[in-house]
């Protein structure tokens, strides 16, 4: 039930290597084929533009580092094929294109000090490994390349995503009625006894809103962990859409909100004041209260 069957097809550009790595490269090539991965290689001379096109016809590139510097040690120029492949891959500006750099010796010694430079050069799309087994390395490559891209459903933009538990639906509706006069609000009622994938919905809808509001009256036990999970799933402090938790003071107190302190903004107030608090938070967020 929980097996990843690695059904996604992808291509890997197998870079040229220094002479000491030729035999390993051939061995890896066979392993890649057995793993069901299509290989792209440079055959013959290519202009830089043609090389770039060829590399971009694959989804990722693989570079094997040996004890000989891929850069010409005398001139310091990247004109050797392995160095050209490495530099071209580094220059590809696409977050979907991955670059797998493999140092199979697993060590750095006097002979391959240049690996330190390569390691310091690692950026977001580079995966560096010094695993000694080529099988394990290819397994990792396959698992990294088999991450499914997120498909987001089309949703409309709103001012506020207003979330509440079905236990509090009556009072939540009174609040949304009041808020609805001022802002464009989309409601989400959470009921544990349904098949809706709420996280998926929030994932897609929240970034399209200016703020998310989690309201609770009786369902305080639900609201705090819920807000935490949503905060975590939607980027935390780095999220562009902040969350605001509002609790009815007839069933909540400050101690209950302690887990949210310094992480998520919240209020505890009378039910009738909560729309005002949400409005004020929204105004602050959008800079509206500065004009008075």
């Amino acid at each position, binding site marked *: 039930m929980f097996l990843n069957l690695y059904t996604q097809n992808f291509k890997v550009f197998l870079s040229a290597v220094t002479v000491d790595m030729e035999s390993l490269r051939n061995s890896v090539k066979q392993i890649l084929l057995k793993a069901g991965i299509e290989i792209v290689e440079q055959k013959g001379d290519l202009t830089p533009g043609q090389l770039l096109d060829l590399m971009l016809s694959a989804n990722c590139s693989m570079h094997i580092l040996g004890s000989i510097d891929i850069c010409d040690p005398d001139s310091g120029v990247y004109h050797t094929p392995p160095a050209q492949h490495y530099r071209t891959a580094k220059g590809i500006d696409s977050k979907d294109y991955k670059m797998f750099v493999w140092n199979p010796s697993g060590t750095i010694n006097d002979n391959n000090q240049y690996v330190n430079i390569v390691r*310091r050069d*690692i950026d977001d799309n580079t995966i560096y*490994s010094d695993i000694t087994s080529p099988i394990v390395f290819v397994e990792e490559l396959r698992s990294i390349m088999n991450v499914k891209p997120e498909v987001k459903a089309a949703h409309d933009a709103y001012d506020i995503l207003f979330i509440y*538990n079905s236990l509090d639906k009556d009072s939540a509706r009174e609040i949304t009625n009041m808020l609805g006069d001022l802002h464009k609000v989309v409601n989400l009622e959470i009921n544990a006894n349904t098949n809706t994938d709420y996280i998926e919905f929030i994932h897609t809808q929240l970034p399209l809103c200016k703020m998310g509001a989690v309201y609770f009256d009786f369902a305080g*036990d639900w609201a705090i*962990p819920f807000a935490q999970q949503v905060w975590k799933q939607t980027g*935390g402090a780095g999220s562009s859409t902040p969350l605001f938790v509002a609790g009815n003071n007839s069933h909540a107190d400050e101690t209950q909100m302690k887990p949210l302190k*310094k992480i998520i903004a919240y209020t505890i107030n*009378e039910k009738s004041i909560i729309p*005002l608090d949400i409005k004020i938070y929204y105004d602050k967020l959008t800079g509206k209260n500065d004009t008075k």
Partner: protein
Amino acid sequence: MNAEICPYPGLRPFTEQESIFFKGRDMHIRQIIKLLEENKMAFITGASGDGKSSMVYAGVLPNIRAGFCKARFNGWLIADFKPQKNPFQSLCESIGRTIDMPKDETAAELKHGFSSLVDLYKKSDFYTDDDSGRNLLIIADQFEEMFTNSENFTNGKPSDESYITINLLLETIRLSIIEQLPIYVIFTMRSDFISQCTVFKNLPEYIAYSQFFVPQLKRNEIRQVIEQPAKLAGGSISPRLTEIIINNLNSGFDQLPILQHALNLLWKMADNGEQQMDLIHLAQIAGISSDTLSPSDKKLFDSWFETLPEYQRKYYETPSLNNILNAHAGILYESAYDYFMENAKWADKNITPDESKEIIETVFKSLTKTDNKRQVRNRCTINEITGIINKPHITNATVCGVINIFRTPENTLLQPFSVPGRLDTQYLSGDTVLDVTHEALIRNWKMLAEWAEEEESFLKDYHDFATQMNRWLQYDKDQQYLLTSGTFSYFQNWYLANRPNAYRFLKYDNTKNSFRQKLKLAQNQYENCQDFLEYSDLAIKAQETSKRRKLLTVITILAAFTVGLILLTGWAMRERENATNVAEYARQQADSALVQRERALKSQQIAERANTNAKIQKAEAQVQASIAKNARDEALRAKYLAERRRHEADSLKEIAELNLANAEFQKLIADDQRQRAEEQARIAKMANDSATRLYSVAMSNALAMKAKSPYGNEKLNLRIAYTAYLLNKRNNVTQNNAELYDAMLYSMELNDLIKPLKTTNEPIAAFTIDLADRIILITEKGRVIGYNVADKKAKEFFSSSSNNKELVKSAVFPSPNLVLYSTMGKNHYSINISGNDHTPKRLQSQGDYIKNAMLTPDGRFIVVAYQNGHISVLDVDDPDGRPEANLNLKTEIADIFCYGKSDVYILTKNATLQRWNFKSNNTVEIFSQPGVNAYAMTCIESKNLLAICFSKGDIQFLDLKTGTKESDMLGSHSRIEKIIYDRRTKYLAMLSQGNMISIVPSNSMKTKPLVIDDFMLHNFAVKNICFDSYGTIYVLTEESFIRYFETDINLYAEELAQMKINELTQEEYGVILGQSYSTK
């Protein structure tokens, strides 16, 4: 960035509160929740240290609480337990706590096993027919304790308590599947115990049915574990550091704890996430060689490294991810003494640095043990550890103080963790159980690994020693079972090297006995050990002495025998000579006599020999007696010496205890004296502060009054008022001082910073503020106009046409979208503003003007009060239809207030308060005060109080339900005509006769109300007041201007600060007040 938040917990597991930073297992959490939804149970197994508990507590549980597990109810009951030494008791305790039932009662309910747990749940208030019930989740964490604790599992056989616990849990799962009950069970267990589960009937089938083997994290997931928490907390980590960490992380044991610990230190090294975490930080925590850094980073590292003390540098010699923990613990070990001396205020500082290290060694040795050839943790109390240390001057206080550095929130290598500022978490009680936070520490701190090996070796020798000693005890301490000289020498060395005592033996007692019993047994064992060694020593010495004596005896005997032999030979030769002479003489006569003589001679020889032998035997017996006597004397002396030593030790102990008690008493006296001194100092400081404050207030008030004088320079007024405010604020005096407020308002008005809002030219009948802080008003011509307020100006955004033939006499806004009004001719209308149709709807006439109108809280009805005492309840959707209810009190109404679905509080002018339920048409008088008039009323809902204003400006606060007086205050010196309450700022605002407006916070009703403006001074009559959503008061005057006032003077001050208004200089101050005063 919040410095208090570290998104990586270090060596300890994630708590439920930290679930927000628990990343990398999202898919596994969803899979476990799916298992629960489908199978009602999940049996989570995995290797030690792979985060099973974290996954349940920081992953599955928060998701379940957040409503991401499909279940019958929205709420959850969580009953979690660890089997510990009695799984049934642990289960009962947890279930009882969860459903609020005493533990004993729960145990009585559950002891019959099978459906007992399900029955208990079904009978509870949490299993309901409607949605208000709660699902039950049982978590059996660290289930391997069923096998690791000898109380639960001995010689391959589980205890009865284990059987009943398993029976209850499995049967609960079975019934919840069959009956579709919202009960779920999660088990977590180390996978190396899976084969032992077969001893429980049915358990293997259930495991196979719903097992979840925690997978090793894949590269992508480890990347999430590393990167996501930092991002969530607003920090970042460089891609190259992530890649290097992933690569250097060994797979298998301790992968995650090592990683989390390293990340925790990296975060702190990067200035609590203020900097991007990078390779240099990894090098600074001894996780990577500085040689791999870029030249610029290397330079930075080298200059930083030079600042480290010498003892720390050695930990950077072999950098690696695993070394980080070794270096961290090692540095703490080295610096524990200094930390103790500086921080352990409660402990005597009578130990040396070496003793501090010995204490740490003993603590960690006590907290580790060997189980199946693996070094694992072993919980111990502080009392036990102090007992093992066994030095009079080292008390629990010393032990706590020395090891505290391992328990701080920054280090968390030992638990329980201390909390800064909480002494009870630093100076722990003796029965507090200490535990190593994670076994990864034992495997990665080299020093601790060596100690653990030493402890294992000790234990092995102890077992050998105990075997021999027990045989001796078994045979009634028979001498022949004592140690021989070779083994004695070995065990004596072992004993002297380890100096074990009763507490150390106690550590290895795995029986079910109580602690007291165990301690008694260990004490016996300790005494037996001492006796065994002592008797063995005596026996060996006695044997050696005996051997020496025997040798001496043999030598003596041999010497005596030789001398005898020589003498006998001489005598025999002499006799033979005589006999030869006699024989010569009587050769012929005495042939037969010769034979007899020879026989006699032989007899004599035998007799002589016998005599000699007897003497020898006597001497030997005397020697033996002497040896035995010596041996007995020596034994008695040794015993006497031992007893004397014991008495001396007891006396020393008593003296030490007395000294300790005396020291504690002295400390108490000193503490008391210190507290008194501190109290006196505090009082003196308060008096001083108070004097300074009073002086400053006087100065502030003087300045405030001066701010209202003309200087021909309006800005100077502003600066004087602002300086007065700052003086007041710096001395933390009352927030809203009337003089100050007046000065601030005056000077701001003088500078045109506060201007009335100009709206329509038509006279205004009434106004209100809506949720968006817009002004909605109705003119006397019946036109409704809406204004946005921006940049201190009102801009019209909506206006209705005027259809009225008569002028409006009175109007009220029950809500911002609805206005009701009466015309001069006493005709009544309503206009709904929210829709497009603004045509007034005519209401049934009640013969007088509308006094007030309110919506019921559910928004369904409008309650309209007329001046003549008539009250009508109208349907919001059909206001011009027939009223839902009517009441005629036939006396003038002062005010009304709607509460609940259908209660209306009616205040009459003759000061009676009635509650009318318009559904049941039931009226009850709940309060009356003859002889006075009442004018206005409002409700403070958060306190269930009604505030009623009487003719002389006094206000009474009445309980909403009973009408009893709770408190009162003087709101004004004249009649209060209107009172309103702002639920957000919790301020009351009052409009008094004479057009004075004052405010008072409802949470300090003893405070004198602050008069914020007296409109008599402006010759303006005030028609109405209203709060906006920020607590600003809007005031409508008869000249149709709308003015606004902040309830909080700080808001004005902030505006002046933003305008960069300067304080008065010293010179200006002197000129204005005629004296010098420091405004700083």
